[in-house]
């Protein structure tokens, strides 16, 4: 009996997992197509004001409705997602490069370097990320780069930890010993043997970081500390929708938020599958 339930449970799990994986892949591809192809292909001005059609609820002509000056919200959301995604990607990339460099250096040099660097990482992990991000943005505002730097500087810490522990465990492996006794320089060991081996882990961390970075950018933009309003991200769209919402119109708020949630879940689904592949022992339970 016990075995039977285990088997059946395993089977349902596997099929739901496949469904989830397929759905995630479809969403990610759809999002990529939407943000890459729609803007150059559809020669429409997402800023086109149409005061005769302001605050129209969702309809076949405007699937997401229109905002308070009559701009089509579907188009605005696609452009917003494009900007959010771009900022998230760049920030995650910068954070991953910093984190990998710091983590690999700390583990490869060891001793005092390692201790001091990791204590600094610990210290900065004690500041809530959004708060540290708000502080950095407040000091360097306005513009796109302050936002990217703020998100990147608050996100490299976990990557540094992951890469460091990975390099530490790799250093004890025979192939590294063999390389060292074969006369490889420290630089060659790091670049040729250690870094390629940590790349899958760092890559996974980077992929998981993208939705996180998008979330941070949106929060900053919503608080009025993020991107300038002529480069409206999803967070800016929610921010500007606030006055319409207080007048009772829900759609300018609802859709940008949904466009933030759906890709996040899809990327988490894909990353969960990837993690299971490179590290099958761990169940992808708490994946966000």
């Amino acid at each position, binding site marked *: 009996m016990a075995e039977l339930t285990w088997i059946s*449970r395993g089977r*349902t*799990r596997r099929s*739901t997992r496949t469904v989830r994986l397929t759905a995630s892949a479809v969403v990610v591809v759809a999002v990529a197509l939407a943000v890459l192809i729609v803007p150059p292909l559809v020669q429409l001005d997402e800023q086109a004001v149409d005061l005769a059609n302001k605050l129209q609820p969702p309809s076949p002509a405007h699937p997401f409705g229109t905002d308070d000056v009559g701009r089509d919200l579907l188009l605005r959301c696609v452009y917003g997602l494009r900007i959010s995604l771009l900022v998230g990607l760049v920030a995650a990339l910068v954070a991953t490069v910093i984190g990998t460099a710091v983590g690999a250096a700390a583990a490869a040099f060891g001793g005092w370097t390692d201790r001091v660097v990791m*204590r*600094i990482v*610990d*210290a*900065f992990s*004690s*500041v*809530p*990320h*959004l*708060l*540290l991000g*708000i*502080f*950095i*943005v*407040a*000091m*360097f*505002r306005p513009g796109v780069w302050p936002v990217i730097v703020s998100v990147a500087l608050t996100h490299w810490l976990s990557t540094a930890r992951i890469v460091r522990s990975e390099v530490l465990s790799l250093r004890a492996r025979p192939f590294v010993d063999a390389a060292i006794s074969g006369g490889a320089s420290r630089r060659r060991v790091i670049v040729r043997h250690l870094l390629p081996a940590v790349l899958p882990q760092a890559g996974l961390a980077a992929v998981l970081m993208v*939705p996180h970075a998008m*979330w941070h950018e*949106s*929060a900053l933009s*919503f*608080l*009025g*500390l993020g991107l300038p309003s002529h480069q409206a991200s999803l*967070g800016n769209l*929610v921010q500007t*929708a*606030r006055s319409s*919402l*207080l007048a*009772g119109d*829900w759609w300018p*708020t*609802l859709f*940008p*938020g949904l466009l*933030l*949630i759906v890709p*996040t*879940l899809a990327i*988490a689904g894909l990353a969960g599958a990837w993690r299971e592949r490179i590290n099958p022992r761990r169940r992808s*339970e*708490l*994946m*966000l």
Partner: protein
Amino acid sequence: MARMTGRRALFAVPVLLTVTFAVFAVAAASPFDPVKAYAGTAGLTASQDTLDQLRANLGADQPLVARWWNWLTAALGGDLGDSSVMRQPVADVIGERIGWSALLAATAFLVAILLGTALGVLAARRQGGLLDRCVSSAAYTLEAAPAFWLGLLAIWFFALKLGVLPAGGLTDTASDTVTAGQVASHLVLPALVLGVSQLPWFFLYVRQGVADALDEDPVRGARARGLSERTVLLGHALRSGMLPMLTLVGSRVPELITGALLVETVFSWPGIAAATVQAATSVDFPLLAALTVLATAAVLAGNLLSDLLYGLADPRVGFDG
């Protein structure tokens, strides 16, 4: 235990020193100029001599380390400087607002723990069942949903559509006294939103803990003794499944602060998190610096609480950390 508390307090000193120094270093590297911030629009017409005089008075002409050290020694004496946006000493701003933030955070935590435990037990009872799959999917979705967005939708639904709860603030605009009843009705929505935004973690933790406990020997033993399913679930599985979650509550302080920054702003709640955002928007460095350090101290205290509770709950862990 006292020794561990002492050791951790000692560890907190370098952390806080590093963070305060980094705060000053970031400000020094930024285009932010304390003199211009202090002088405001008057700074545009003031002569260079006046500005230089002001710079010397504010101590802004000193090197970074000296400014940091002056701030640090003054802060230890209770003087955190003056907030330009609130037009009062930083210490007063914090004193007036921290109570409201604590009230909001405590209520939200209570909501998250109670709801998370109830849903977690129900989901773990039949893992993979319909209820489990629905609630778990909802939890993942909620975890991805920004708290400010949830807050706005809650305002739309409860305050505008149903008209049952106020949309924000601490009291009605018409009243100028703060009564308990008014505060309670204004607390419901922000506390609910902040609690729900923290819910996924609590729920997933309890669900996993109870589900694991249900597979373990004590539960098998209890079932073998013929105890009712209710006693097994609530008396045995929940007790061992919830313990790790309760002890880890302290480590949720960073997420709680993050949520509070957004929720307090959406609901115009007069707490320190909303003040942080105001300080950031108007580049009020003294207030922003003090609140960043305060938040870091809160996170460290939360971590310590977690470790202490864990040691108390599980004697195998001990207090050596």
